[in-house]
């Protein structure tokens, strides 16, 4: 492969821009239009000669803008480029763009048919800002054979990269069942991984499809409540966790009710510190001066007389 030293001018319509190596194309932004209007085309696009004109190799946004402005295009020709060379040139030309996981995956998917896994790791991943032996590298490789609808969710940022691990453990049917959860909401890494893991594990434990688990957990109703995305995700997670840990959730709920009554009107925080592995509770408070300390001690004294403590002492034990 070689780049010509001359720059030529051709009409925008003579350049075809549908090659699969243009894996990050999107609408051009206004600032590029403004810049071209003010200064003209500062940098040539890269293209190679094709049967009926030229094939664009890099510079899609510039070409689109120039086409819109009905202006000719400055082109630097690329000679003897194969599919791999074109992808690498496209990457190099877009090296300054901020990347997200969807873009990284799109690039990897392009190169995966052109080189082996070892080359992908050693040659392409570093160009995408990923260390070949990193956890993200493994996750990206796991995404390579995911169906298109999931790739779209990754590209929009609705599903995080790490979600692929629990998703791939699911059957095709279960994957279809959980997919709508990601259609309208942007999930954080921990929420997505937790929810999917809890659903999968509950399904395994109960030997029931995830659809049944979700139905029993009332997740469809939560989706229909018209809550904000943040509240919807929080409730879905709570429901999935309760399905995965039913006994623990019941204990926790009972503890929280008792603790709430005990500490009502005070700044004391009453928590169960170890998932009921031992009985009892942990009490904490923050005080900033002597007056607050005095009040905390008085509140604690009052709290000791509340009968609800008995429920906490016995929670999870044999007499519970």
């Amino acid at each position, binding site marked *: 492969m070689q780049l010509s030293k001359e720059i030529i001018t051709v009409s925008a319509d003579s350049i075809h821009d549908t090659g699969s190596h243009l894996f990050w194309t999107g609408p051009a932004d206004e600032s590029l239009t403004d810049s071209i209007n003010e200064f003209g085309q500062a940098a040539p696009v890269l293209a190679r000669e094709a049967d009926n004109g030229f094939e664009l190799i890099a510079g899609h946004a510039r070409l689109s803008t120039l086409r819109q402005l009905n202006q000719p295009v400055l082109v630097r020709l690329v000679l003897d480029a194969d599919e791999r060379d074109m992808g690498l040139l496209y990457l190099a030309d877009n090296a300054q763009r901020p990347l997200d996981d969807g873009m990284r995956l799109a690039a990897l998917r392009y190169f995966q048919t052109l080189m082996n896994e070892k080359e992908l790791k050693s040659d392409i991943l570093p160009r995408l800002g990923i260390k070949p032996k990193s956890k993200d590298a493994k996750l990206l490789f796991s995404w390579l054979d995911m169906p298109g609808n999931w790739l779209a969710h990754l590209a929009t940022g609705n599903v995080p990269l790490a979600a692929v691990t629990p998703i791939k*453990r699911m059957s095709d049917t279960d994957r279809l069942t959980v997919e709508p959860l990601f259609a309208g909401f942007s999930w954080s890494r921990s929420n997505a991984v937790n929810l999917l893991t809890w659903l999968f594990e509950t399904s395994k*434990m109960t030997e029931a499809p995830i659809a049944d688990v979700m139905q029993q957990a009332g997740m469809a109703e939560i989706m229909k409540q018209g809550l904000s995305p943040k509240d919807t995700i929080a409730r879905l997670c709570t429901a999935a966790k309760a399905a995965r840990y039913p*006994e*623990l959730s019941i204990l926790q709920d009972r503890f929280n009710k008792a603790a709430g009554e005990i500490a009502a009107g005070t700044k004391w925080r009453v928590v169960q510190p170890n998932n009921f*592995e*031992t009985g009892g509770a942990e009490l904490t408070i923050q005080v900033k001066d002597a007056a607050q300390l005095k009040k905390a001690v008085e509140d604690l004294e009052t709290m000791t007389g509340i009968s609800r403590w008995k429920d906490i002492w016995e929670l999870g*034990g044999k007499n519970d």
Partner: protein
Amino acid sequence: MTKPVELPRHLRKISHVFVDESMQDSTVARRVRDRLNGTTHEGIPWTVVSADTDRVEFDEGDAQALYLKEYKGKFLRFCPGTRAYHCCGYRIIHIGENCPMACSYCILQAYFQDEILKIWANQDTLFKELADGFGADPNTRYRVGTGEFTDSLALEHLTGYSHDLVGFLNDYDNVVLELKSKVVDLSWMQAATRTDRVLPAWSLNAPFVNEHEEFDVSTLKERLEAARTCAEAGFRVCLHFDPVIHYPGWREGYAEIIDMIFDYVKPENIAYMSIGSFRCMPQLTNIIADNFPETNYIYNEFVPGLDGKARLLRPLRVEQFSFMIDRLRSHGMDKQLYFCMESTEVWNEVFGYSPKDFGGLGKRLMAQAFGE
């Protein structure tokens, strides 16, 4: 021509023997060679490992390698119990690492992620260290076992290791040796000169767990028949329910095996019996999921315990323990029963007392082991 003899089922995956250069003429190496002769495994390759080899590599799918190694570390160790739970306090005689059998719940999967079964072939060094330890003070008593990093008897058919160890310990009145296994090999009995210093022990579980989670092991019936043979020969035995698994139908399953025990042995034949709920370091869960995709008990309600290991939620453990202890008590078991790595709370809830009430678990088991 004589037809070659089959090895016991749990040894048939062994397809290669490695031996350290310095161990080629060891008793164990010679014995393994002799015992493979005339078997279907007579022709498996032997590779001598030179002293400058850092690590033996063996990766042939399911096939296993036996590695007769010169071990340079300490042979007599403490059990790696944690302070948050009551440990039985037994001492480990480290004779090797890894196990040829496949149990889904086994912690060795996390410890040793290869198919190399290591045996410390430098028995002379082992016996010297044990003699120095056990012989230092005849009044100090030891309850020891070899079943921590391997199964005590899994490789016995080839190595005769426990036979040698039992023979060596005949001279130490202050030592009781527990041989813990999931297979049946009683050849060590020929070396025992007294029956009150060896405790043959078998792991037991609910039949469902035995059928679905333990592979290449002896059946529960075979283990209990072996226990009866030992009892009839005058030995007391140990039985261990560890791990107890929480699965649908666990009541019927554990009731069945508990009742079955007493078809073979009497309570007075049992030195002690442990019960331990399934617990594991968090990374083992994924290993089990990968190695045993059909296994689903790992998705029960496990929470981080006080030692960082995943443990079944306490009320669920207590429910299982109470059921089992009640059933065992109805058969006449009592003081021989103990929990492996459980909290004071659980002891109190199930037994109504905890180890500090009887002076500590280690002390009680020492007395039980010595028949007091």
